[in-house]
């Protein structure tokens, strides 16, 4: 008993074996356990108190001293113990129970995994996908329908549904989850390049070739991790990540962000040469009724505010003052120029331009009334006209417009052709000119009969009158010339002539055309861009040199273009700014001048006399960083990198993501970026 000081002596104490899988059933019931204990297989080992030992011809008791030593009666004659007891029911030890429970838990876990494991891609689709024992979680809202598509999980995980062998192979090979992203997503550069940027030494590269990131290969899954729930933001990015690559580390926007440029945010002149200063100080006061003024939002559409606040259309903002300046600028393509002699063969003219029955009747009436003499051709018809050939015609014919001797033969050949084949005669000639011309559009609406009648009249030395008055613009004859009048703003024929003329000289040079052709191409360009040019388009629309990327150096210039439409900012691909929360801060339009202050001294209009869009004087003072840090600073409004900078270059989609609308309708959050 515990009160005995020598209770652990070998004669009183049995050796305890806690690693045995079973314990005596009597002990479990807090009775007197037998000294022999249970057997290893779980059966009772205490039905007898010992196992007698045969020593010679006698059986000897082997009951241990701790159980009282050899018994008085000794073994029975057959060698069995004389002290027998009814057997107990041994119970598992704690160690054994722990093993049993462990096996139970292991079986449960394996069963759970197995029960929800499906290699088939059409199992556990949609919202049930999260139940699959291969799914670590729900896809984000934007991708939530992937499991519903034909490919399902295999859209991203190529080994999905391919069985155990493919799994075993995949275990030791690299996966390429990110590569499938570009099946749907597109970028302005390599998807595996940092910022989708180009790292070359060539002009136009996004970053320098010696950038530390030039040889870095990125993967979508580096930043975008999925299966974090439908509402999860799968494109989290911290400022520290930006700083890890960028050489210039920025602690915060308010502290050490590089200063904005001298002209920020105006790196390029606007496509439309709208001089805010002259309009506000001069034109509006002159044109508007007394007491009426114009504000920013009268022209700029704040309902479309985003990166920019685009102005309204020409019809909304400009037409009331500038429409008349467009429609009264015509372009002559053929005329009756000054010629010292008649280059036309009268017989040929008579044959080509035989009088029509109406003309015959007119002649008959004239003869009868004695007025026939007045119909005699004017002997000095070509000499009385002091005009040269128009620039368009001179270029078309490849002659100098101010050299009567030079263009005499060309006119002599063209007009009979016009009389014979109408538009084709001039169409073919323009079409043969070097350059990027849309001849069909340049001559759209030109009536061949008009040309034939005009050519015949002029070859017969009489002025040609249009058979009917032309209203609303178009091709017409005014007696000595066929001209085109724009029908209004954005006239497609006028645009076609400008698009051709702007690069005609360069195209002629490239085609090694005659000098006279090059000169006339330049003359046509000068004519169109002058204040008398067709539609006076370039009064407002900038003519800008086109480069092959990089700097605006002369060797990079590939041509000129007329900037026909309002162009949003494109030269800051990694900058994003949203005007909406700013213009509405204190009411629509009330805060424009907080950031955009006019520079009254700037010679804004002068910059449009040349073609380099980067050389210009903004009509506004630069937006200073201090303007932003008034609010975007510690403790006030966000100032993290991603607020104003976007990681990707021109992110977009390769295919119509129609199915996304439904998903996005359910959840508008959790899909920033990408």
């Amino acid at each position: 008993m515990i009160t005995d000081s020598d209770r652990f002596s070998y004669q009183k104490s049995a050796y305890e074996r806690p690693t045995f899988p079973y314990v005596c059933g009597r002990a479990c019931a807090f009775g007197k356990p037998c000294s022999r204990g249970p057997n290893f297989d779980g059966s009772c080992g205490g039905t007898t108190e010992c196992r007698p030992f045969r020593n010679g011809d006698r059986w000897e008791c082997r009951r241990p001293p701790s159980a009282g030593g050899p018994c008085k009666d000794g073994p029975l004659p057959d060698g069995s113990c004389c002290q027998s007891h009814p057997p107990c029911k041994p119970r598992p030890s704690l160690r054994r129970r722990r093993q049993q429970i462990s096996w139970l838990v292991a079986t449960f876990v394996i069963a759970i995994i197995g029960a929800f494991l499906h290699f088939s891609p059409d199992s556990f689709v949609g919202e049930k996908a999260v139940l699959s024992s291969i799914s670590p979680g729900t896809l984000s809202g934007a991708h939530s329908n992937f499991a519903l598509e034909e490919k399902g999980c295999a859209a991203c995980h190529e080994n999905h549904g391919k069985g155990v062998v493919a799994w075993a192979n995949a275990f030791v090979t690299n996966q390429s989850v990110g590569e499938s992203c570009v099946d749907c997503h597109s970028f302005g550069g390599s998807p595996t390049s940092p910022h989708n940027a180009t790292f070359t030494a060539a002009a136009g590269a996004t970053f320098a070739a010696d950038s530390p990131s030039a040889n870095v290969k990125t993967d979508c899954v580096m930043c975008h991790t999925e299966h974090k729930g439908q509402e999860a933001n799968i494109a989290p990015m911290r400022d520290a990540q930006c700083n890890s690559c960028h050489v210039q580390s920025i602690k915060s926007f308010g502290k050490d962000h590089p200063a904005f440029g001298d002209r920020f945010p105006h790196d390029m002149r606007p496509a439309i040469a709208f001089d805010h200063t002259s309009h506000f100080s001069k034109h509006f006061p002159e044109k508007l009724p007394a007491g009426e003024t114009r504000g920013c939002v009268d022209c700029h559409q704040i309902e479309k505010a985003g990166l920019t606040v685009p102005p309204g259309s020409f019809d909304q903002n400009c037409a009331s003052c500038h429409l008349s300046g467009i429609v009264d600028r015509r372009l002559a393509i053929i005329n009756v120029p000054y010629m010292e002699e008649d280059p036309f063969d009268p017989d040929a003219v008579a044959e080509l331009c035989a009088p029509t029955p109406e003309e015959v009747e007119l002649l008959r009436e004239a003869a009868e009334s004695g007025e026939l003499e007045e119909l005699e051709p004017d002997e000095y018809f070509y000499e009385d006209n002091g005009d040269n050939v128009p620039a368009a015609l001179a270029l078309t014919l490849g002659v100098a417009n101010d050299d009567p001797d030079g263009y005499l033969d060309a006119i002599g050949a063209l007009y009979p052709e016009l009389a014979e084949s109408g538009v084709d005669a001039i169409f073919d000639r323009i079409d043969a000119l070097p350059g990027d011309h849309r001849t069909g559009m340049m001559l759209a609406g030109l009536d061949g009969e008009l040309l034939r009648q005009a050519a015949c009249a002029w070859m017969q030395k009489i002025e040609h009158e249009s058979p009917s008055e032309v209203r609303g613009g178009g091709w017409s004859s005014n007696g000595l010339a066929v001209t085109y009048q724009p029908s209004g703003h954005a006239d497609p024929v006028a645009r076609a002539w400008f698009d051709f003329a702007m690069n005609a000289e360069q195209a002629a040079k490239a085609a090694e055309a005659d000098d006279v052709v090059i000169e006339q191409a330049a003359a046509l360009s000068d004519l169109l861009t002058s204040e008398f040019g067709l539609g006076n388009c370039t009064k407002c629309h900038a003519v800008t040199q086109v480069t092959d990327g990089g700097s605006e150096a002369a060797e990079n210039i590939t041509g000129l273009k007329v900037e026909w439409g309002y162009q949003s900012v494109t030269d800051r691909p990694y900058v994003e700014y949203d005007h909406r929360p700013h213009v509405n801060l204190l009411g629509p339009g009330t805060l424009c001048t907080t950031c955009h202050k006019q520079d009254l001294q700037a010679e804004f209009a002068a910059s449009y006399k040349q073609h380099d869009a980067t050389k210009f004087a903004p009509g506004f003072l630069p937006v200073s960083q201090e303007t932003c840090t008034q609010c975007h600073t510690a403790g006030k409004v966000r100032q993290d990198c991603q607020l104003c900078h976007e990681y990707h270059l021109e992110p977009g989609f390769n295919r119509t993501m129609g199915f996304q609308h439904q998903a996005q309708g359910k959840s508008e959050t959790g899909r920033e970026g990408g």
Partner: protein
Amino acid sequence: MRSLHRALIIFWLAAIAGFILVAWNAWQTWLHNGEPAIVTGYTLAGIFVFLTLFNMRKRLSMIPLGRGAYWTAAHGVAGIFAIAVFFVHTNGVFWPDGAYEQLFAALFYLVSLSGILGYWLQRIMPKRLTDNGMEIIWERIPNELSDIRDKAESIVEEAADKAASDTLAQYYIETLAWFFRRPRFMFSHFFGAQSGRAWIRREFTAMRRYVDETEETYLRQLEDLAQIKNRIDFAYAVNGFLKIWLLFHVPLAVGIFLVMIWHIILVHVYLL
């Protein structure tokens, strides 16, 4: 004891240094747009293996693999280390979204909680057992109770003979037999209450009014035996909890080990 304390300090320093290293590596990997979960995940897997080795160590007691006390200390420190690395691995997410990862997390939290409970038990229970003043092998407690019970019954029989009265015998049959039958007041002993001692004092004080001087002597012997049995009950309760908590901790650890293997397979097949 001092060497164990020194070892514990070393283990903690190693764990803290390891955690700082893992966290710093994860932070740097994340900064450079890498996947920190690879390193943290395999670190966690390594810790799990180390924690499992503790169980192996107990099975291989014949091999000199270091003192069990060191292993226990290292096991506890590594468990805390695992909890810290786990949250670095999950990027602070407490409850994941997928069903099997939820099973993973649930098992991890249960293992962690049972481990913390076990660590707490092992910190406070041995001291209480020492304060009990009685050293006894837990597996022998049934035998000891049986001996005490036999002793008590022999005292009652002797009292009946000497005093020619069945007062004590009746009292034993009606009251004390219940107490000596098996361990009593288990939860009271575990939580440190004195319900057993109060019960003994109350019952024996009440009985003392009904016995004569001869029976008083035997009643006192019975009370001494009851006090001894009460202390054995205490040892049984406290020591029992030290053993029973492993019935939760070890099987859950087995479960988490299996889910971990499945997790590694999936990560390699579907991502890496």
